[in-house]
């Protein structure tokens, strides 16, 4: 078994309003950043798991995303899996 690090990014599905992003977008011009648009706020989750290979690790993390880490009704997710070198 090898150890893998998964970095998961959870964002709003396209078309679902992002109230936090919209609020920050409205606040930025007040600080002089008037050239900013499309602010999106999501979640970043990092975890380490053991798996026989990267493919298994990736599949398991995607499964976690669909079942608990994200709500597919309103959220999209991307997963980046990298192998951790043993010390």
């Amino acid at each position, binding site marked *: 078994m090898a150890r893998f690090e998964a970095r998961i990014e959870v964002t709003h599905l396209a078309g679902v309003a992002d*109230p936090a992003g919209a609020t920050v977008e409205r606040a930025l011009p007040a600080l002089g950043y008037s050239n900013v648009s499309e602010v999106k706020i999501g979640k970043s989750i990092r975890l380490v798991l053991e798996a026989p290979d990267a493919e298994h690790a990736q599949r398991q993390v995607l499964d976690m995303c669909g079942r*608990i880490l994200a*709500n597919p009704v309103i959220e999209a997710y991307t997963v980046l899996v990298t192998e951790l070198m043993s010390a």
Partner: protein
Amino acid sequence: MTARVGVVQFPGTNCELDVCFAVEQLGGTAEILWHGDPSTSGVDAVVIPGGFAHGDYLRTGAIARFSPVMSAVAEFAAAGGPVVGICNGFQVLCEAGLLPGALQRNAGMKFLCTTVGLRVETTTTVLTTATERGQILQIPINHFEGNFVCDDATLATLRAEERVVVRYLQNPNGSRDDIAGICNEGRNVVGLMPHPERASDLLLGSDDGNALLRSLLAACSAGAASLLS
């Protein structure tokens, strides 16, 4: 027989005693159902009350849906048992897939704690048989994530099947189609953001919530099958 209402308690739930009080003053018997027990203990109805189940970590209701009691609640609901989710309970029912859609942060990014006007849209649910269609109720809301979201197909189904149970007179949180509460296909599972138990005595400013809770007590004896006729 007195109606027995089970009130689910997760770590972080904080409205369970208010619901018990409101149920008992209407003549029902209330008992707490601990989230770790995989049973509904033979009650006649289940209420998932408000609060911050499991700290609302990750998302509201995301962890709560995996608590052992929720499998029992799902079975109870599938058998036609009356289940009502209030506020955080509504969020839990959506996460558990017992109701469609999801609740996300309020459009204005403000925690809302105020009394709102609601319009009853259907009387054929376990929570509204003792009300009249079009009746206006004054009931408090108290939430940060009450903004009901669903896709176009789900909204079309909810409307066609008259499954929007209550709507806001003035949309406070950005909810799609002013939706404050919905029910499932069997009309025995209802979720709503407003708190009927906080409008259960005129001392609290309104007792309009009693009509809803009285409906629930009536559903305990009537059975949900009568709602589908």
